[in-house]
C-alpha cells in the first residue's frame, strides 16, 4: 500500500532533488490563520507538511515550539480541531503529504483506534510521536501500520549501529534524522557529520532520510539537502509566525505572507541542492 508520502518521495527522486519538509504548529495563533498558513506552505514550495499537535508539556522542544503550542492551546486548539484542520486542507490539496507531529498523551486520551480512523478520514498520511520509541511500538506504531498510516521514527546521533535496526524495523514513509542531540531550534550541526550520518542510516534502509533540527536559511537547506532526501524546517517557521504577533499575542503583521516568503526561499535552497552537487 503506498501513501501520499511514498508517492511524493518517488516523484522527487525522479526530479533528482530533496524534499522540503515544513513543520508548523496547528492552531497557532488561531484556527483560521493557521489553516491559511498550512495552505501557504504547500503553495510556497513545501513538499511535505508536518502538522504540529500542541501539547502542554513538550519535553523535547525548545522555547519557540513550546510557546507556539501554548498559543495554540490558548486559542482553543484541540486534537479534534487539528484533525479537522487537515480535513479542511485536503479540500483543495489531495497530494501534499500531511504528517501529524506531537506527543502521545492527547492521542491516548482521544483513543488510539478512534484517532487512527479519524486521522485517516482527515487525510493524514503519517505520524511522528516524539515519546514513543520502538520499545513502545504496541501502543500506536503497530496499530498505525495496520491502519495504513506511516509511522515515522526519529533517529538521533545517540542511535548507534546496534540500535538502528530496531529503530528502523517498523518505520515507514521516511526516517527523520535529528542532526543533533538536544531540543528543537538549537544550533545547526556540521554538514559533513550530517552527510556521514545520512550515509550510515542509508546503509540500513531504503527509506528516504530527512534531516532536521537547526535548519533556518536557504543556504543551510541547500547544504543539508546535498546529502539528505529531505530537509526539515520547523522552528524558523514557528518563529516567523511569532514575529508577526504583537506583545499581547494580537496580529501585528501578516504571518501568512511572512511564512510564504521564508518557505519560498527555502524551496529555492532545496531545489539548488542537487544542482550544486551535480556541478
Amino acid at each position, binding site marked *: 500500500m503506498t501513501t501520499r508520502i511514498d508517492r511524493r518521495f518517488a516523484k522527487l527522486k525522479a526530479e533528482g532533488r530533496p524534499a522540503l519538509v515544513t513543520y508548523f504548529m496547528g492552531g497557532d495563533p488561531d484556527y483560521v490563520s493557521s489553516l491559511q498558513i498550512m495552505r501557504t506552505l504547500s503553495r510556497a514550495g513545501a513538499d511535505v507538511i508536518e502538522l504540529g499537535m500542541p501539547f502542554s508539556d513538550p519535553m523535547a522542544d525548545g522555547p519557540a515550539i513550546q510557546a507556539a503550542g501554548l498559543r495554540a492551546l490558548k486559542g482553543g486548539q484541540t486534537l479534534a480541531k487539528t484533525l479537522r484542520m487537515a480535513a479542511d486542507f485536503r479540500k483543495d490539496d489531495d497530494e501534499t503529504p500531511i504528517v501529524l507531529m506531537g506527543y*502521545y498523551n492527547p492521542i491516548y486520551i482521544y483513543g488510539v483506534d478512534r484517532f487512527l480512523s479519524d486521522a485517516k478520514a482527515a487525510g493524514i498520511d503519517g505520524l511522528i510521536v516524539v*515519546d514513543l*520509541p520502538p520499545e513502545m511500538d504496541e501502543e500506536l506504531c503497530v496499530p498505525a501500520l495496520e491502519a495504513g498510516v506511516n509511522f515515522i521514527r526519529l533517529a538521533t546521533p*545517540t542511535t548507534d549501529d546496534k540500535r538502528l535496526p530496531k529503530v528502523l524495523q517498523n518505520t515507514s514513509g521516511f526516517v527523520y534524522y535529528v542532526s543533533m542531540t538536544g531540543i528543537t531550534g538549537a544550533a545547526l550541526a556540521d554538514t559533513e557529520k550530517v552527510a556521514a550520518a545520512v550515509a550510515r542510516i542509508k546503509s540500513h534502509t531504503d527509506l528516504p532520510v530527512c534531516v532536521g533540527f537547526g535548519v533556518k536559511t536557504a543556504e543551510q537547506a541547500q547544504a543539508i539537502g546535498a546529502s539528505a532526501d529531505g530537509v526539515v524546517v520547523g522552528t524558523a517557521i514557528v518563529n516567523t509566525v511569532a514575529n508577526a504577533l504583537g506583545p499581547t499575542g494580537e496580529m501585528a503583521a501578516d504571518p501568512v505572507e511572512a511564512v510564504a516568503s521564508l518557505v519560498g526561499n527555502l524551496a529555492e535552497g532545496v531545489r539548488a541542492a542537487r544542482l550544486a552537487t551535480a556541478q
Partner: protein
Amino acid sequence: MNQPLTPNSFRTGPDEQGMFGMFGGRFVAETLMPLILDLQQHWEDAKRDPAFKAELEGLSTNFAGRPSKLYFAEGLTKHLGGAKIYFKREDLNHTGSHKINNCLGQILLAKRMGKKRIIAETGAGQHGVASATVSARFGFPCVVYMGSTDVERQAPNVFRMKLLGAEVRPVSSGHGTLKDAMNEALRDWVTNVEDTYYLIGTAAGPHPYPEMVRDFQSVIGLEAREQILEQEGRLPDLVVAAVGGGSNAIGIFHPFLDDRSVRIVGVEAGGRGLQGIEHCASMNAGRPGVLHGNRTYLLQNEDGQILDGHSISAGLDYPGVGPEHSWLRDTGRVDYVPILDNEALEAFQVTTCVEGIIPALESAHAIAQVMKVAPTMGKDEIIICNLSGRGDKDVHTVAKMLGVEI
C-alpha cells in the same frame, strides 16, 4: 477500567519492559532511549555488586545517619486517644528528609557510569538540597531545575543549594512548579546526553527510575518493619505516607505490601478541594495518561493536556504520581485518600505543639490522615506514619497562611 487480578505477590514488579500492569514504561524521545537502556544495565550490575551495596550502606550509616528511628509519638497518641502512633523519623536524616536515601544510591551509580555532571529537578527543594549535597560530597557540578513559584516559596532551600555549590535554574513555564522543572531537566538531559546524569528525585519517570528509586527508598520500610517487630512484637495495623511523586510512600509501603494484615494508605494533596482543579489528587480525581516517560494517573483535561495542580506543599504539587502507586491503587492493595491544605496545616500545628516536632508540610498531610483515623481505632492498634521530612523549610509558608509576618 478492568480491575486487575490480585497477584500472588505485590512486590515482583515491574516486568522487563518496566510495566506495573498497564502503568510505567519508557515513553521517551529516541535521543534518551540509549541512555535509559545504559542506565538500566548499570543499575542491574550495581544491584548485584557487593562492593556497591557496601559503599551505599557505609554512606547511609555514617553520612546520612541511618537507620532512622521509629519513634512512639506519645503526645499525639494521647492527644487523639486512639491507636498507638509511631513516626518513622526520616526528618532526622542528613539534609532533613528521605530524599538523601535515593541521592546517595544514584550518585554512586553516576560515579560508576563515569558521568561528569548531575542535573536534578526539585519541588519543595528537599531533593534539590539532597542532590546538591551528594554532588558536593563526590565533586560533581550540579544544576537543579526548580519552578519559579517554588523558588519563591522555598527560599531557604534555594540558598542551601547555592551554598552547597549547586546552580539553581528557575523555570517559569506553566505554573512554575515541579512539573515544569521536570520538563526543563529532561530538555537539559536530551541536550547533554554524553556526560550528564539525571538524578530523578521521585519514583516516577521512565523505567528503570521508578524501580530504582523505590529500591533505594525501601530502606525506610525495611527498617520500620524490623523496628516495629522489635518494639511491639508485631506488625502495624496501618501504614500511612504522603504521596506526591510518591518516593517516601513507596519506600515505606513496599516491604509491607505482602503483609496482607497491614492496611496501607497513601495521602494525596487535596489542595482546596477536589471539585475544581486546585488540588494534586491525581489518583482520586485524575485518569491514566502518559507524561514524563511513564503511564500513570494524571490531572488532565478532556483533550489530554496536563493541568497544573495546586497544593500548599511544594513537594506534593505535581499532577502525576509514580506508576507503581497507580498500579497499587487499581489492584486495591493501597487506598489513596485526599487531605486538604487546611487539614495539613492543622496537623502541622498540632504535631508541633503536642509532639515537639515540626513536620514538613508534605508529611503533615500523612499526619492529618492519622488524626482522622487514629481516634476511630482501638488503643491496642498500631499506626506507622512516615515522617518524611522536617518542616523548617516551611515556616515561611505556614506564617503566610496564618497571616503572621516574620
